[in-house]
């Protein structure tokens, strides 16, 4: 009897790119739901716009590059980029913000470099940073957490604002939007207030900003699940959060009137989203175990530096992109000791 032949190993596990990507998307659900709960329909509108643009752009680029469209889209990476970008965007952003960010992320930052696996920079963060430096005003249109809002937009009203730029009569966008807690601290410290005075306001909760701390907890929960499932390894989140925590602790201990507490930093802004979902993007991150720790710590420290002394209230995107640049060097110097190559 004759048989077909293949190369060993003949057995393969159940691990799959598509499964990984879908796992990460699923893990983002608690944070996403909490973000929707606290910041309204804008979160979901952004999500739909960003994800559909990412998928559309990926399909168009694949077709132009003569690559299999359906199979490649099945890996879920484009949808995940859209999801991560949307989670980073302000809820009152006009429709073209998520669309433009998604286009830039997929077309320039991913497909022009060769598609999945070949992009040196995190596509979602490239898209986000392009928006942040090109459209600073639109990128500050954050919503207040729901209990702090004077008026809350319904889904239809949110769509009208996003797509047509119209608001219910008698409200202006300045009236319904609100600066983020990190932004508030930055501005008010500039006005000479102390942190104790600033954080006495209702925008601040017991850990981070009110509402924000819950969203961060949501992402922490999802991140924990990813760790448990083995989708991500501990080094990058631990390095990121550890680096941020230690930096914050040092300066908080030195001057607690000017520098926010370590816990505040961990539960504000995009800390948890960044640590578990963004910095862990395998394609653009370091790949050696020690390198991942270095990479994570680097991001954590940079996030703190940008938050404390930089020109932007949060710095996850910049920190991730800066460390993306350092990845080849980190990988080179952190190669593991090979079996039989001496030392312990």
């Amino acid at each position, binding site marked *: *009897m*004759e*048989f*077909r*032949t*293949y*190369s*060993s*190993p*003949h*057995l*393969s*596990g159940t*691990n*799959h*790119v598509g*499964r*990984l990507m879908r796992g990460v998307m699923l893990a983002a659900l608690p944070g996403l739901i909490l973000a929707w709960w606290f910041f309204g329909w804008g979160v979901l509108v952004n999500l739909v716009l960003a994800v559909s643009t990412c998928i559309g752009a990926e399909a168009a680029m694949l077709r132009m590059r003569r690559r299999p469209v359906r*199979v*490649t889209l099945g*890996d879920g*990476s484009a949808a995940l980029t859209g999801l991560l970008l949307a989670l980073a965007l302000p809820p009152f952003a006009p429709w073209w913000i998520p669309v433009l960010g998604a286009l830039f992320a997929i077309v320039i930052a991913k497909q022009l470099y060769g*598609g*999945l*696996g*070949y992009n040196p920079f995190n596509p979602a963060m490239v898209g986000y940073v392009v928006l942040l430096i090109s459209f600073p005003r639109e990128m500050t249109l954050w919503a207040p957490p729901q209990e702090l809002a004077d008026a809350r937009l319904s889904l239809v009203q949110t769509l009208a604002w996003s797509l047509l730029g119209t608001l219910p009569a008698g409200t202006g966008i300045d009236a319904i939007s609100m600066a983020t807690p990190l932004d508030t601290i930055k501005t008010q410290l500039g006005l000479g207030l102390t942190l104790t005075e600033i954080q006495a306001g209702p925008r601040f909760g017991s850990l981070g900003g009110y509402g924000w701390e819950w969203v961060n907890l949501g992402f922490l929960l999802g991140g924990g699940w990813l760790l448990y499932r083995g989708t991500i*390894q501990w080094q990058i989140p631990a390095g990121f959060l550890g680096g941020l925590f230690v930096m914050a602790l040092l300066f908080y201990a030195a001057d607690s009137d000017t520098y926010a507490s370590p816990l505040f930093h961990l539960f504000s802004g995009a800390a948890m989203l960044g640590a578990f979902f963004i910095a862990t993007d*395998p*394609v653009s*991150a370091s*790949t*050696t*175990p020690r390198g*991942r720790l270095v990479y994570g710590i680097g991001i954590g420290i940079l996030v703190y530096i940008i938050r404390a002394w930089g020109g932007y209230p949060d710095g996850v995107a910049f920190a991730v992109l800066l460390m993306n640049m350092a990845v080849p060097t980190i*990988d080179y110097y952190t*190669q*593991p*000791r*090979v*079996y*039989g*190559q*001496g030392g312990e």
Partner: protein
Amino acid sequence: MADHAGDHERLDLSRLHHFHGGLKLPECKAAATATPLRTLPVPPRLILPLQQHIGEPARPVVAIGDQVRKGQLIARAEGYVSVPVHASTSGRVTDIGDYPVPHPSGLSAPAIVIDSDGDDTPVAGTPHGDYRSLDPSELRNRIRRAGIVGLGGAGFPTFIKMNPGPHKPVDLLLINGAECEPYISCDDMLMRERPQEVIEGIHILMHALQVGTCVIGVEDNKPEAIAALEQTVAADHRLGDIRVQAIPTLYPSGGEKQLIRILTGREVPSQGLPADIGIVCQNPATVAAVYHAIHRNEPLISRIVTVTGTGVEAPANLEVRIGTPMRHLIEACGGYTPGVDRMLMGGPMMGFALTSDALPVTKTTNCLLATTREELPPPEPPRPCIRCGECVRVCPAQLLPQQLYWFAHARDFDKAQDYNLFDCIECGCCAYVCPSRLPLVQYYRFAKTEIWAQERDRIKADIARQRHESRQERLEREKRERAERLKRKKQAVREGDDNSKQAAIQAALERARARKQTGADSPEKSD
């Protein structure tokens, strides 16, 4: 490496160590261990490849038409790294020529074909003394003459492993009973049913190596084998410390380097051998073959083969004659199931695919795995590497498999070697966990083969260059010598000329002077 035994750190067997990475795999061993070991009858025709080992193929010492007996030498070892081949039964040599052999290349190789006479008449056995009266080198010779090679699958001549050289003192004999690959259970069945053969063989090897300690490492998914060995060891009151050590079931704990790490904490140096760190490692079936060779004076003519997978009706372990066509094994196990799709020799991780079941069982055939598409589906189309690092996490050699993949892919072989490509043991863990389903091991084999080819080309080019250079040198030298000779000749001629001129002048002067004298006298005389 070490000049004397003291150079090794003291052997500490009190605790187990870990190797990096590894995988928990589905075991799939139960089907073939459910029934006891059976002996397959001698088939009507045996095909005995001349190369069933690593090294030079053996050279036939029989001709077509010769009558041979069971255990008779039919091909002798050729060179040092080589072992002989023996007739697995009595009968007539009907052909010596190329036959398809089990090899990843799927190519044919020289083999001797014997048609059995059905009598299975052995060669006249020669009496032999107690192995303890034989010195190590005599034992090694006997092991070599019996054609024994590593039966775990690699097929390296055993006598070479038994001769690490005077500068490599051995302080531990390790028996690799881990059998970590899924499906394979031939060593398990041997250890369960014939533990005394393994222990007897161990005593012989300990004597041959002059070591006092032996550890048998067995994965803890084989409690019956562990119990059988422990009982045998407990009932054995001879000198020598033999221990049975259960180790956690984790693929590839049966890799020689990994097993050494688990049991001793030592690491075989990169590009080195276990003997460099005072260890000799053997497979239980090899040890049992040594027992047969020394105690019963029987060469290696049979082995235990696991026949399993959902592609066969009744999986089992069979003791078969070397050279038996594989289809006889399948028939003995109830034949194929309807969905059979592939047949592998070895396990699903490191085994290779066979093209047909007409191939003969060789000394290294530990397992025949016939599978259905449901069991081992055909490989999925690969996707791009996403650098997820799962391969790094599981690599038992602690390599960076994804980096090696990039370098192999880009044909950057220097870089691949910088990243220690040759420390890869091709266990397949990386490919197993790869979410992009990249055939990683295939890339490493490709890179290794290319590097070997380049190395061969380089050596060839070096030889050619050396030859060219020495020719140039010779031509130069000859030219120089010719010039030298010419110069000398000229000088000789010139000097000769000078001398003769001088001599002529001198002679003329002499003559003139003489004439003058005589002239001066003669005028007076003549006057």
